[in-house]
């Protein structure tokens, strides 16, 4: 078991998400940075989809009630295990009773805001509708369907003994950088109502460094920048939407739907952030800027293949290292 000593705010149990329920009105949830979650699980030789704790607001403090191997991926939060420094993206051993403290993210080498505490064999909360992710809107899944509080005890399964401490992974944020004119970027496909917007709105969409406002969370990111205007007022019936969709409500300031988005909406859609780049957005801090990089369907599929290749290569090298009497 892991005891939460200081929960910060909005820390949740997440896996890669609850897929297959959008037609029933069940949103996907899941890690805002699925690459950090999958990377942590590869480090610990877990299933790729094992559940971890997503920590968006620091500091955060837990006590390991029994010995285990853990990794903190995502943002580098200057972790400490009791007094000893904890390397980011690194498999560490914790003994029973040791306290892990995560502090404010260091964003000098990689501008990231969310940390993932991954443990050997995953956080063992019950799967609901096929996933251990916390569904905040419906108050189910994860740990009692809610953000963690001080004093919560999170179950861990009896360790399979597969995890080996003492090595790490290069964060994909360093291995797969993406920028436009020095500003972090995400690739975007034009969406159904793209052609309904003015020429100057199109230009602004692709050339603006959009500011991520404080009204941004797991549900969606509200952006600030030049006004995006349709050629004529648009009235749409509600229709299905997915994480990544960029809606433009009245007022012309875009909203990107994120992991806890509701599964339907009626605002016009000017674009969609490709699935392969949602992890970049998931790490973008409030107050930072992001650029939209236009891409084609084929480029979007290619980006997804790049992610799968990075994960497969990391998995292969970790298994090679641990298989050959690893843990040196």
């Amino acid at each position, binding site marked *: 078991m892991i005891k939460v000593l200081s929960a910060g705010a909005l820390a949740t149990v997440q896996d890669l998400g609850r897929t297959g329920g959008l037609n029933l009105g069940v949103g996907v949830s899941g890690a805002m940075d699925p690459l950090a979650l999958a990377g942590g699980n590869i480090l610990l030789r877990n299933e790729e989809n094992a559940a971890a704790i997503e920590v968006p607001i620091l500091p955060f403090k837990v006590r390991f009630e029994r010995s285990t191997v853990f990794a903190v991926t995502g943002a580098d939060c200057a972790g400490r295990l009791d007094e000893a420094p904890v*390397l*980011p993206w*690194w498999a560490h051993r914790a003994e029973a009773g040791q306290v892990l403290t995560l502090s404010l993210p260091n964003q000098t080498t990689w501008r990231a805001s969310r940390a993932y505490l991954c443990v050997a064999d995953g956080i063992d909360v019950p799967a609901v509708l096929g996933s251990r992710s916390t569904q905040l809107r419906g108050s189910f899944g994860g740990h009692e369907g809610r953000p963690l509080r001080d004093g919560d005890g999170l179950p861990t399964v009896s360790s399979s003994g597969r995890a080996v401490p*003492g*090595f790490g992974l290069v964060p994909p944020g*360093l291995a797969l950088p993406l920028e436009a004119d020095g500003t972090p970027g995400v690739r975007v496909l034009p969406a159904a109502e793209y052609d309904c917007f003015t020429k100057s709105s199109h230009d602004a969409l692709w050339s603006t460094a959009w500011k991520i406002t404080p009204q941004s969370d797991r549900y969606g990111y509200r952006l600030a920048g030049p006004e995006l205007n349709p050629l004529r007022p648009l009235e749409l019936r509600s229709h299905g939407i997915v994480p990544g969709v960029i809606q433009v409500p009245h007022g012309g300031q875009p909203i990107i739907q994120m992991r806890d988005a509701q599964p339907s909406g009626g605002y016009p859609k000017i674009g969609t952030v490709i699935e392969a780049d949602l992890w970049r957005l998931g790490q973008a801090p409030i107050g930072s800027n992001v650029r939209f990089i236009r891409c084609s369907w084929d480029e979007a599929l290619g980006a997804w293949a790049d992610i799968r290749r990075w994960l497969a290569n990391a998995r292969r*090298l970790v298994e090679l*290292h641990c298989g050959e009497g690893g843990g*040196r």
Partner: protein
Amino acid sequence: MSSPLDHVDQLSVWLKDAGLALLELRGPSATLRLVNDGASVHVVEGKESVSADAPSMTVRAPSPGIFLDRHPLHERAIVLIDANVRADDPLGFLQIGPLVLAVPAPRAGTVTDVLVAHGTIVGYGASLFVLDPLEGETA
């Protein structure tokens, strides 16, 4: 079966061709150490001294890779010259693709020299650090 000692010349050529810094063969009756210093390959007799009274010891690369003096997310070297380290503390790292391995301190001591620049590709056994063991500490 022939002894590896009969094939030192061939082993030396392979070592040089592969760019490896050290070949160590240990048998029940003999130990062979071939050290490639870049210019030539020569035989070093006996085992590497790790006795407690040795003034300093060389910490070698436990694997080939790209030598990193800091974690990829960090801006400063994890260990500075004259820093005291405990046994098993990471002194530096070796990167192999996405994988990052530690170069652990073999024992407690003081790092007196870093022999390789950050970002250098090194072979197995390359000399990376000079460590003055702490008196009274055993490996």
